[in-house]
């Protein structure tokens, strides 16, 4: 437990800046037509922003292994829900009726 290593205001400011840049980037890119890549780019930027918030604003980077493992498990279940559901609906048209 690295209990005494708290993030500093400087680090918070860097994270804020990264989040603002990410938001501007995703906003600008939304107006460009990238075909099937629009959702991929937008959601990748969202994931990066969320990870920054979780690791630093929510101090998960500094918390115990138990907390880290629990959070990872939670997101793993979320991914099971999303990927298994979508892999069904996305592939229904692949086979002839």
């Amino acid at each position, binding site marked *: *437990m690295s*209990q005494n290593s*708290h*993030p*500093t*205001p400087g680090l*918070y*400011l860097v*994270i*804020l800046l990264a*989040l*603002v840049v990410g*938001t501007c980037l*995703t*906003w600008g890119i*939304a*107006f460009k*037509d*990238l*075909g*099937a890549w*629009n*959702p991929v780019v*937008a*959601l990748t*930027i*969202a994931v990066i*922003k*969320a990870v920054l*918030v*979780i690791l*630093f*604003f*929510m*101090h998960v980077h500094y*918390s*115990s292994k*138990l*907390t880290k493992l*629990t*959070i990872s498990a*939670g*997101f793993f*279940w*979320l991914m099971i*829900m*999303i990927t298994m*559901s*979508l892999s069904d*609906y*996305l592939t229904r048209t692949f086979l002839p009726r």
Partner: protein
Amino acid sequence: MSTSQTTTTEHHPALAHQFDSMEQQQDASTFGMWVFLLTEIMMFGGLFTAYLIYRLKYYPAFVAGSTSISVSWGFANTLVLIASSFTMAMTVWAAQNGKRKMQVWLLLATMVLGAAFLGVKAKEYYDKWDECHIPGHVIGKGFNAWGGCSATDKSLGNIAEEIRDPKKHGNPNVPEGAAEQIAKQTEIFFSFYFAMTGLHAFHMVIGLGLLAWLTWRAKSGEFGPAYYTPIELGGLYWHFVDIVWIFLFPLLYLISRHQHGV
């Protein structure tokens, strides 16, 4: 109660007797908060999954609905919420370093930004009311006047026109009846829009209540380097609400702006 049998050692007044130390107490509290937040993530995750499935099924309607909401307001609100997450993170830092006044000011700043977010959200909701985009088409502009927003009202007609308008990423070759059909299906998009942003806004309102309570306690000097767990947990909740919006913004506003085969 007799305490003669127990060793009376000095400890922090906030330390509950089932814990060995303040550190252990905070770890347990943080862990519990995360378990709660994971259940919240699964709740919003269910909505996200349903949204993605219906987006596959009614893609042209989701494009029409998504292009009818304002990206600029959504963008502005994302920045507001990110800024509020920053002030919240700084509140925890101020508490850790025993800066009582700074804590109160930062909490108030977080609340002002949170309220600004809800204000913009209310403006966006009003626009949907004004354009007769509320699902069901009985609530909206002219609600008090005879007729209200009927299914044959301008709203659906406008969306059908926009679907054919090449300037709005539309396709002029969409046949007459199909455009009306798609316009009707945008009600599914708007149902998701209001359910997801509504549930999120409800969490914001609860968050504002929590922040007001924390401000009250911080003002009395309850929190310092030895004990700031409530600030930490309130912060976790506030950041979680921020993360939900970080995903709502691209899903609702950004990913369906250009129409393609799935």
